[in-house]
């Protein structure tokens, strides 16, 4: 299901805000779906709670209508389920919009904080110095997910891709991309210089 994909390799129908014309998307990653288990279980608990309490009151022969009229009870139940829906939906959005993007030019970390805004960090592949991955917990091994740590020479010195699926594959591809990007060109120019001169040409032609 497209809404629950956490590992997209070369996705075709996905673009991002600052994507350049010749920039290819290699990975779009989210936290592994198993990391959503906490809020999903809590949501199920919130859904079941009014039903369970209704069954309990009926079995215990407690007349709740004596304390609160039926229409108030109806509104309260609707409100409860609306708040449950808000909690579930917001938790899902936080998971869905927290993405890690790897292109043939850079890595981007989109950090969505729900009602408190977003933060986007990026580093060029030219600035990446070291890439490490880690699968340290029992769940990591069982469900094949882990974290990737990217050391950079940019302003933000470390990028952490938390709980992403198949970290070994991402690590492998990312190191290949970094190598290819940082390898000197046959003409003696590295990619960075080339892209800088291209940018200069574009600017002057405008």
């Amino acid at each position, binding site marked *: 299901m497209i809404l629950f994909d956490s590992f997209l390799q070369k996705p075709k129908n996905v*673009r*991002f805000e600052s994507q350049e014309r010749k920039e290819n998307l290699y990975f779009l990653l989210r936290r592994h779906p198993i990391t959503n288990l906490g809020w999903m279980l809590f949501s199920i608990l919130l859904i079941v709670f009014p039903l369970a309490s209704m069954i309990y009151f009926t079995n215990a022969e407690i007349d709740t209508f004596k304390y609160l009229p039926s229409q*108030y009870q109806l509104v309260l139940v609707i409100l409860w389920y609306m708040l449950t829906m808000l909690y579930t*939906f917001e938790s899902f959005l936080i998971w869905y919009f927290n993405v890690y993007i790897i292109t043939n030019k850079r890595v981007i970390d989109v950090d969505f904080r729900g009602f408190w805004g*977003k933060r986007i960090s990026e580093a060029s592949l030219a600035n990446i110095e070291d890439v490490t991955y880690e699968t340290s917990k029992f769940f990591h091994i069982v469900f094949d997910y882990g974290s990737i740590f990217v050391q950079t020479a940019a302003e933000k010195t470390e990028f952490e891709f938390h709980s992403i699926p198949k970290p070994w594959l991402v690590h492998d591809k990312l190191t290949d991309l970094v190598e290819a990007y940082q390898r000197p060109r046959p003409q003696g120019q590295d990619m960075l210089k080339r892209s800088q001169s291209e940018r200069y040409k574009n600017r002057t032609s405008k």
Partner: protein
Amino acid sequence: MIENINLLNSINLFLIIKISLEVFLFVYAIIAIVVIRQIKFMTKTIKSDANKYLFILAYLHLIAVFITIFITLTTL
């Protein structure tokens, strides 16, 4: 006399509950609109085919809020 006072108290209590619910629902409606704004804001950052499902869910949520406001106003 005492019965009348009790009746007055109960009316005031339910009126307070009703007003509180209305205020809460009004704030909630604003939050539901903020959620839609959030999705608009984030779908500009990441453009995907799946984004339309998020909009459908967010608008259904907002409609549910308005229906609840309507129920509260008419039944309480």
